[in-house]
C-alpha cells in the first residue's frame, strides 16, 4: 500500500487541460484534476462513509493509474483493498494531513457545519428564511459541500443562489479564509472545485470576490515550476481574461493586481528556456498583460513606480519593448490618455498592497513573525527554517526581490518594536542579500531595496521605505563593509544610469533620501559614511562631492567636501551584472 502524502508529478501538464471538463460534466470527472491520484474522499456520497485511515492519508495502488476509485466502486470493493484497521466513521477531509498533524480549526468548523446540516443540503431545499446564526452555518455547510462533493457542485451552488441574502459576502469571506489558510494543503481535485466556484461567484458579481481573486493570485508561488503551481497560473490568467468585463464592473483594481502579478511571473517564466510546457502559459500571460496595459492604461498608472520596475525586466520581449518605447517617448496611445510621461509613474508611490501580491500568506506570516518576535542574536534558526522552506529549491531565489520590496514598503514596525531587541528590517535584508547566489537576483534585490530612494519626495513618500537601506549601509561598517560598498556603489550607478533623461529627478530623490534620514534621526549624521576609514576613498569622495553638489544640509551646516567638481560615474562597477535597461538604450 502506498500512502499518498504529497504532490506527485504528472506527465501531462494539467494547465493544458482547462477546467471546461468541470463545467461540461459535473459527475465525477477526474480529467480536471491537477494530479493523477485521487482520494477515496471523492467517491460519491453513497460510498463516502467508507471508513478510511485515521491519519487522513489516502490510498493508491502501485500500478499506474489503475485505481480509479469512481462511482462504480461500491464501499465493499474499497474496503476489501484495505490492509489497515478502519475506524467506523470516515473523517471527511479537505486536506492532505500528514501523520501526527493536528486538524486545522478552519476545516473543522466547515466540516462540523456540513455534518450538522447535511440532510438540509439535499433537494428539495427548505423555503424558510434562516436566522442569522443558521445562515452562517448554512453558508459554511454549502461551502464544504461545494468543495468536497465535487459531483454535487451545481446542486450546492443552486442552493446557495436560493438562500443568499447578503450578496454572497459571507460565503466569499469563508472561501477567502479557505484559500488563505488551507490552499497549500488542499487536496488537488478540490483546488479545481475552488476555481470553479470562484468563477460562479464572479458571474454573480459576489461581494468581495475581488479580494478572493487577490488571495488566489497570492497562492501562485514565484519561481515554482511544479505542475500544480503552473496549473494555478493558467487558471488565474484564464479567469482574468475570460471574466474581463465582469471584473471591470466588480472592481477594476483586480486587473491591475493581475497585471502586477503576471508581469512579475513572466520575468521568472521567461528565464526558463527550453521548457515547452511553459510556452502556452507564457503566451496567455503576455496577452493578458498587454491587454491591461493597452486597454486600461489609466488604471495601470495607479500601480505607480513599481510598474516601471517590472516592465524593465520584460523589455526583451518584442510586445513589451513596443509598449516600453511608447511609454518612454510618451507617444502612441498613451499620450492621448492624459499620460504626461514616465515621470508621472516615477513620482507615484506604489500602494503597499501590490507588494503583498508576490508573497504567499504563509510567507507573509513567517516574515512578520520574524520581524516582530524574534530577537537579534537568536534569529539564525528561524532564518534557516525560512530559507529551507521558501528559498532553497531551484529557481525560488527570485522571490528575494519580492521579499525585499515587501519588507521596505509593506512591513512598517511600530516604534516599540524598532526600539526593542527584535531583529530589525535592515538585518533581515542584509541576510537576504547575502543569500543571493545569482547575480541577476542580487542586482534586482538591490534595486528593490534602493528603488524608493531614486524618486523620494518627502511630501508623498514614507521614510520607512528608505530606512532599511540607510541603516544597512551604516550598520554594515566595519564588519560587512562589502555590503556598504556594494549598496553605495549601486546607488550611484542607478542615479547615473537608471534614466539619464530624468537624471534631475533621480538626483533630487537620492539627495532628499539622505537628507530626510538625517533630519528624522534614522542616523545621526552622514559623517559615519563620509569619514569612514574602511570605506573606499573613491566612494567617499563621490559621496562627499554629491552631498556638496546638491547643497546638502546636515544639522544646519553645509558639508565641506574635500573636492569640488562635477558628478562622475562610478567606473568599472562589478556590482551590477544585469544592466538595468535605461530608457535611453531603447531609443
Amino acid at each position: 500500500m502506498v500512502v499518498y502524502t504529497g504532490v506527485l508529478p504528472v506527465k501531462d501538464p494539467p494547465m493544458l487541460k482547462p477546467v471546461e471538463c468541470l463545467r461540461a460534466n459535473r459527475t465525477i470527472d477526474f480529467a480536471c484534476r491537477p494530479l493523477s491520484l485521487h482520494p477515496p474522499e471523492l467517491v460519491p456520497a453513497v460510498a463516502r462513509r467508507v471508513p478510511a485511515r485515521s491519519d487522513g492519508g489516502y490510498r493508491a495502488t502501485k500500478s499506474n493509474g489503475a485505481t480509479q476509485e469512481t462511482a462504480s466502486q461500491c464501499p465493499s470493493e474499497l474496503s476489501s483493498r484495505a490492509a489497515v484497521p478502519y475506524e467506523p466513521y470516515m473523517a471527511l477531509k479537505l486536506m492532505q494531513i500528514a501523520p501526527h498533524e493536528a486538524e486545522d480549526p478552519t476545516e473543522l468548523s466547515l466540516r462540523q457545519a456540513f455534518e450538522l446540516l447535511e440532510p438540509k443540503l439535499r433537494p428539495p431545499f427548505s423555503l424558510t428564511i434562516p436566522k442569522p446564526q443558521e445562515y452562517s452555518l448554512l453558508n459554511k455547510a454549502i461551502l464544504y459541500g461545494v468543495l468536497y462533493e465535487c459531483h454535487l457542485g451545481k446542486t450546492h451552488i443552486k442552493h446557495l443562489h436560493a438562500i443568499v441574502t447578503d450578496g454572497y459576502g459571507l460565503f466569499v469571506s469563508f472561501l477567502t479564509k479557505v484559500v488563505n489558510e488551507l490552499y497549500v494543503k488542499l487536496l488537488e481535485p478540490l483546488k479545481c472545485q475552488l476555481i470553479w466556484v470562484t468563477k460562479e461567484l464572479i458571474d454573480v458579481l459576489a461581494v468581495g470576490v475581488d479580494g478572493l481573486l487577490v488571495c488566489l493570485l497570492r497562492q501562485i508561488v514565484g519561481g515554482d515550476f511544479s505542475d500544480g503551481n503552473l496549473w494555478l497560473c493558467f487558471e488565474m490568467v484564464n479567469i482574468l481574461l475570460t471574466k474581463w468585463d465582469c471584473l471591470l464592473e466588480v472592481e477594476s483594481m483586480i486587473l491591475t493586481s493581475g497585471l502586477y502579478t503576471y508581469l512579475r511571473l513572466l520575468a521568472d517564466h521567461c528565464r526558463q528556456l527550453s521548457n515547452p510546457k511553459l510556452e502556452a502559459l507564457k503566451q496567455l500571460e503576455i496577452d493578458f498583460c498587454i491587454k491591461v496595459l493597452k486597454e486600461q492604461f489609466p488604471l495601470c498608472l495607479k500601480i505607480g513606480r513599481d510598474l516601471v520596475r517590472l516592465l524593465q525586466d520584460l523589455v526583451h520581449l518584442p510586445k513589451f519593448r513596443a509598449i516600453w518605447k511608447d511609454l518612454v517617448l510618451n507617444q502612441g496611445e498613451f499620450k492621448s490618455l492624459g499620460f504626461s510621461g514616465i515621470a508621472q509613474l516615477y513620482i507615484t508611490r506604489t500602494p503597499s498592497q501590490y507588494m503583498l501580491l508576490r508573497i504567499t500568506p504563509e510567507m507573509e506570516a513567517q516574515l512578520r513573525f520574524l520581524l516582530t518576535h524574534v530577537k537579534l542574536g537568536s534569529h539564525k534558526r528561524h532564518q534557516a527554517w525560512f530559507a529551507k522552506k521558501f528559498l532553497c529549491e531551484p529557481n525560488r531565489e527570485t522571490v528575494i526581490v519580492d521579499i525585499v520590496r515587501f519588507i521596505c514598503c509593506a512591513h512598517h514596525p511600530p516604534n516599540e518594536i524598532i526600539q526593542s531587541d527584535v531583529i530589525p528590517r535592515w538585518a533581515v535584508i542584509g541576510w537576504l542579500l547575502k543569500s543571493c547566489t545569482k547575480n541577476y537576483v542580487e542586482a534586482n534585490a538591490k534595486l528593490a531595496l534602493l528603488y524608493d530612494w531614486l524618486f523620494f519626495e518627502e511630501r508623498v513618500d514614507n521614510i520607512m521605505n528608505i530606512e532599511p537601506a540607510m541603516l544597512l549601509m551604516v550598520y554594515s561598517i566595519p564588519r560587512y563593509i562589502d555590503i556598504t560598498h556594494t549598496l553605495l556603489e549601486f546607488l550611484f550607478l542607478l542615479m547615473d544610469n537608471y534614466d539619464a533623461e530624468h537624471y534631475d529627478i533621480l538626483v533630487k530623490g537620492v539627495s532628499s533620501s539622505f537628507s530626510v534620514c538625517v533630519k528624522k534621526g534614522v542616523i545621526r549624521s552622514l559623517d559615519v559614511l563620509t569619514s569612514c576609514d574602511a570605506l573606499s576613498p573613491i566612494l567617499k569622495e563621490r559621496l562627499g562631492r554629491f552631498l556638496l553638489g546638491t547643497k546638502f544640509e546636515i544639522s544646519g551646516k553645509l558639508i565641506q567636501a574635500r573636492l569640488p567638481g562635477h558628478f562622475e560615474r562610478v567606473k568599472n562597477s562589478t556590482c551590477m551584472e544585469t544592466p538595468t535597461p535605461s530608457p535611453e538604450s531603447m531609443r
Partner: protein
Amino acid sequence: MVALKDIVPAAQNNIDTRFILLDKASMNTSSSQGQNKTCLALVADETAAVHFQLWGEECDAFEPGDIIHLSNGIFSYSRNSLLLRAGKRGKIEKVGEFTMAYVETPNMSEIRWVPDPNSSHKYIQEAVISPHSRIFPPKY
C-alpha cells in the same frame, strides 16, 4: 498548558505543553526491526528548553521548526538522562510551524534534581549542570 520552565521530573503522564522543535539528533535504533527506533531532539518554548525523545514513526514525522502540542507527556529519567516524551499514554501533534519564539537556556534536562526533603514524592532543582544542552550545543 504548562511552561517548560515549570516541568518537574515525575513518574506521571500529565504534562500538557507546546514547544518548537529546534534540532534532531541522528536516529537510534535499539532493535533489529527498527520498531523501537528513537531519536533525541532539542525542543523549547519562550521560557526554557528540554530534551525530547521521539519514538517510532514520530522520528520521521517531525522536523526542526515544527510547533508541537504534547498532551499527557512524561518528564522522567531514561538510562540516566532526563527526557520529556509522549510515552505510551501521551500524544504529540504538529499544530504549526515557525511562529514561536524560544530560549535555549535554561535546559530542563541539564539540571540536577534531588528529592524534596519536605515531600518525598517531589523533586526540586539542586544545581545547573549546564546552561545549554550539552548534546545540542548552541549552534549560532
